[in-house]
């Protein structure tokens, strides 16, 4: 096992790098797959590991998209004028302006989304269980509605961003690798994060918040930090999506509560909550099934999605990883870690 693991990871990494060349026609879909993986993994941080099921993480996606776009535009033009110029006027960006704007935008998208999570968390983490879910869902819907009424950022028109300067195919690779690098960093981070005492504390919150509190864990601080980290990554992912999509609308694209907002939860449930690989496997499963079948169902896809959610939740709640763990505990079962410092070493 110990020898195989580095080989496995290296092979995986090689595949990730080569994927857009192996499947050149699927570059955008592969980039979207990364987006799903990132959203699922970050959702699981609070949903699976901490027991706080958010239905409103899409808020950070939308916020990130808008922040990155507004920052990117504002370093060159006045945002209000830019968004209001849909009737005329052309705004050009040099490649330098484009990349500096995007880089700065993505950074701020992450940081500000984390800040939003921190501030909102003070209020929303007062709720437990389904109230937290309803509260976060409400916050996401409200945010979308308010942004769609905010004329400075284009209101219901949304924002049209500049197109990637340079070759079109290079642009697609660029966005793929941007997502991929982020996904890999997130994976490495989480792989480490889930072995720390911090993660043990959030697991304790999930298992019994009162007891955790009684043991002296400052639960609110842990909850806020975890959600803010998740929001940081979601915000950046939203920012990248905005630049990749070029044009986005507030309700249908940025704050798409019942689409992407619910897909990420379904991904995690499919793969298995509270595991490192569950969200990834769930996202791949969901995305592939969706891309293969979705487009041919012409309207029925939403019925299928609803049925998928119901069936997963009602009959299959532990997801694929949970199912495997119960079938083959010797392979997929919980590893009991004796010394938290030696990450990933199973106890014999």
């Amino acid at each position, binding site marked *: 096992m110990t020898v195989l693991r580095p080989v496995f990871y290296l092979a995986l990494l090689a595949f990730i790098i080569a994927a857009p060349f192996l499947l050149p026609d699927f570059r955008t879909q592969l980039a*979207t797959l990364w987006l799903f993986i990132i959203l699922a993994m970050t959702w699981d941080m609070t949903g699976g590991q901490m027991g706080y099921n958010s239905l409103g993480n899409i808020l950070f996606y939308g916020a990130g998209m808008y922040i990155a776009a507004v920052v990117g535009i504002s370093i060159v033009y006045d945002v209000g004028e830019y968004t209001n110029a849909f009737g005329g006027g052309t705004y050009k960006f040099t490649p330098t302006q484009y990349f500096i704007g995007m880089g700065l935008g993505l950074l701020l998208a992450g940081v500000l989304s984390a800040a939003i999570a921190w501030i909102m968390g003070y209020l929303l983490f007062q709720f437990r269980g389904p109230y937290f879910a309803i509260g976060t869902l409400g916050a996401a819907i409200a945010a979308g509605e308010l942004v769609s009424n905010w004329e400075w950022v284009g209101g219901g028109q949304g924002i049209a961003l500049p197109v990637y300067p340079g070759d079109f195919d290079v642009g697609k690779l660029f966005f793929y690798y941007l997502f991929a690098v982020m996904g890999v960093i997130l994976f490495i981070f989480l792989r480490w994060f889930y072995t720390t005492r911090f993660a043990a504390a959030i697991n304790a919150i999930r298992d019994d918040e009162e007891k955790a509190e009684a043991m002296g864990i400052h639960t609110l601080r842990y909850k806020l930090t975890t959600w803010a980290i998740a929001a940081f990554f979601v915000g950046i992912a939203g920012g990248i999506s905005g630049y990749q999509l070029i044009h986005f609308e507030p309700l249908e694209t940025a704050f798409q509560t019942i689409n992407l907002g619910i897909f990420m939860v379904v991904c995690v449930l499919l793969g298995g909550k509270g595991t490192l690989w569950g969200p990834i496997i769930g996202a791949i499963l969901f995305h592939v099934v969706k891309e293969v079948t979705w487009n041919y169902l012409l309207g029925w896809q939403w019925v299928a999605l609803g049925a998928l959610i119901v069936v997963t939740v009602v009959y299959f709640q532990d997801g694929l990883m949970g199912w495997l763990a119960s079938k083959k505990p010797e392979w997929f079962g919980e590893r009991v870690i004796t010394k938290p410092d030696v990450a990933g070493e199973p106890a014999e």
Partner: protein
Amino acid sequence: MGIFKTVGISLAATGALLASGLVTASPAMAEECETITLGAAISLTGKYATNGVHAKNGYEYAFQKIKDNGGIMVAGKCYNFSAIYYDDESKGDRGATLAERLINQDNIQYMLGPYSSGLTKAIAPVTEQYKIPMVEAEGASRSLFNKGYKYLFAVLSTSEQYLASAITLAAEQAEKEGKDPKSVRVAIAVENDPFSLDIRAGVQEDAKKYGMQVILDEKLPRDLSDMSAILTKVKLLKPDVLIVSGHSKGAATAVRQIGEQGISVPMIAVTHCEAADVVGNFGDAANDILCSTQWAETLSYEDPIFGTAAEYEVGFKEAFPEYTDKTVPYQTAQASAAVYVFKDAFERAGTLDKEAVRDAISETDLATFYGQIRFSEAGNNIAKPMVLRQIQDGKYNVVAPSEFASHKLNWPRN
């Protein structure tokens, strides 16, 4: 009525089984004609679903008519159209993904447009970068035509023209009454989406030109089912013109509640009256409302495939009986016209090469049942005017612009 029936008919009519991915064979006349496959992302679910279906039916009807008239002759070979459709769920990001999918995985070389300006905005950058000519029929926002797109062509008039003519009409009417057009007060209630906001911009510009005052400017939400709050204000502020634009649901809700609340504004102008079938649903409440339209079956346009505008309406109703008791919406007519532009361009290009087809499209100067089609450098149709119809005793009669007017304007309303 619903998609069940529509899909059923199109399956029977054109072998659109292709669209559902079950069968990849060509339709019945395959042994004589080959198939040119067009691609389209169209809204079958979500907020634009009503009009998405209208557009799709328009495409399907045109495929059938062209086939019945001997297909498309390209360099002596005969072809028919078919299409691959995907449901874009009325969402821009989905639309963009599907456009890529059509181009990359289904190897589509020519695209038909989606429904709505927002979706077209999302898809146009993709088709542009792949250099895929797209003739679209349902995206009217001006912002589509200021980006320098070379592969985007629109058969319809841009959206700022939709209701601006109502403002002109109001100004004319004020002058007739011996009043200054400046004294006209305008109330605007439009949906918060790219199309309707563009209409609003057009109305605001024209109102400004005449020095009119906009006294009410509200946005309608996506899930509109009650606009009594706005109508109460209309009652208080007594504007001279009320402008409503919110696709089909905006028209339905507005007309119903205008009737119920007894709103008496001298001029009320609405978009999507036909698509929402306001006459069939609300009867007298719809009387004297002005409806902007890209096309009317009473206009004297004609072409060899579809016949006159009136013949188009009759033929379409035969092919799609669920429209029997309604007025055929212009969304359908312009979708058919977009397909016709492709046919014409293929025949003039004499090749299936997409660059040659693009160039042929850009040189289009075609008289159709839908009106003259000639594209500007930016890709929008500059040869066809918008018309304004008034619902008079349950009939849609053209009242503006004056050269097309068949009836006199009833003014003031009520």
